[in-house]
């Protein structure tokens, strides 16, 4: 590959979005637009003829290097198999509150976290980390949530009492005293 082609390859690789030709000319002021165009063409041909896992594509007025479609399925499957997902900070906080305060209703969790948690509860339930364990007394008999055996398994705990600093949290997360 000639220098200009290598420079374009590096730039397209490092850019977070498709790069229009005008911006590519800023890379090499000595190169004419025609030279840039022919270098792009050389890169495209190199990827196609030489047999690469990637290809050069023109998208939305710009140029971008993309993985070839035939490999995307295998890549996604490998990611799922090898790269475990992590919970978001919000989901972890919700999970922690439920772990230490169960059984607990959605409104109490929202009081502590200060934000709505409806969708988080749903996704934690889909992941089988929490489940509905009953209904509270009182108006509307709201659902109460608790952690599942899978939750204990995830943290290698035998039972809930093994959670560290339970005493501190029990105090901090105590329900507010009822008005008389």
């Amino acid at each position: 590959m000639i220098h200009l082609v290598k420079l374009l390859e590096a730039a397209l690789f490092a850019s977070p979005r498709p790069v229009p030709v005008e911006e590519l000319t800023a890379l090499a002021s000595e190169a004419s637009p025609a030279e840039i165009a022919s270098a792009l063409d050389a890169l495209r041909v190199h990827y196609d003829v030489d047999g690469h896992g990637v290809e050069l594509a023109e998208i939305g007025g710009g140029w971008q290097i993309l993985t070839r479609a035939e490999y995307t399925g295998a890549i996604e499957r490998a990611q799922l198999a090898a790269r475990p997902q992590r919970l978001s900070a919000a989901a972890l906080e919700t999970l922690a509150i439920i772990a230490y305060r169960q059984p607990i209703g959605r409104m109490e969790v929202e009081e502590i976290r200060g934000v709505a948690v409806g969708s988080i509860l749903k996704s934690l339930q889909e992941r089988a980390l929490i489940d509905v364990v009953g209904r509270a007394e009182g108006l509307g008999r709201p659902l109460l949530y608790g952690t599942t055996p899978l939750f204990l398994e995830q943290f290698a705990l035998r039972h809930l009492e093994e959670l560290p600093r339970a005493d501190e949290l029990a105090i901090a997360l105590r329900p507010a005293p009822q008005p008389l």
Partner: protein
Amino acid sequence: MGAVMTEEQAQGPQVGVHAESVTLVMEAVPAVAPVQPVSFLVDLPAYAGPLDLLLSLIRDEKVDIYDIPIAHIARQFLLRVRVLQLNDAAEYLELAARLLRIKAQMLLPRHGEMEKWEDPRAELVRRLLEYQQMREVVDILERRGDERRSRFARAWLQESGESVAAPLSLSLGELLTAVDRILRVTREPTVHTIVARTLDVAGAIAMVRSVIAERRNARWGELVARDAEPWQILSMLLALLELAKLGELRLAQPRPFASVEIEHDSSGEAA
């Protein structure tokens, strides 16, 4: 500073010190003995902390780290703290106080068996070496980090919808961090800030010994500054009790709430 100085420090604020400004500074610090006027321009870079400042001082003055001329270095340290206007940084003042204490300890008469004499500088040397070692690692990290920063990774993010089917990665550490976040934002009264300050009983013992060796007696109020922090008061209290137990001094309080009197115990010496 040589290889240990980072580029960031080199780019940091530079303070040029002329002989005049040093003289002015000296007048403002009566506690520091006057030094020969500095007749050349000194460039002082920004420091990452008191140990960094002390270490570069040792290097600049070309002294042996295993045999630090403590009086001279303490004076230079205080001078730089003044010039760099680090007076408000407790960490710098704490190290300055430590240097002065070591200086006092060095002046103590070493009676009798020399083998039992412990170099008061030993702990400082150990800390300096440990710090210097860490700075060596910083150099390595900086070099590797720069190398990596000179290359771009792929920036474009492929769309991949979050799939519930993927296995979960959960650690107790993550859960505990979440717990800490909750504790910080919920009930403020239950959150205590614990000040990281260990007691320095050994330092207090050394100070009492040096005072008693010189004057035979002292009073509590003379050993503990009025604005002393709780850890200093506690350190001194423990030091006095320890020394009384060792029979090196006697403690007496003539009447309730009076300042405790500390006296050299000569009976212990005779025994």
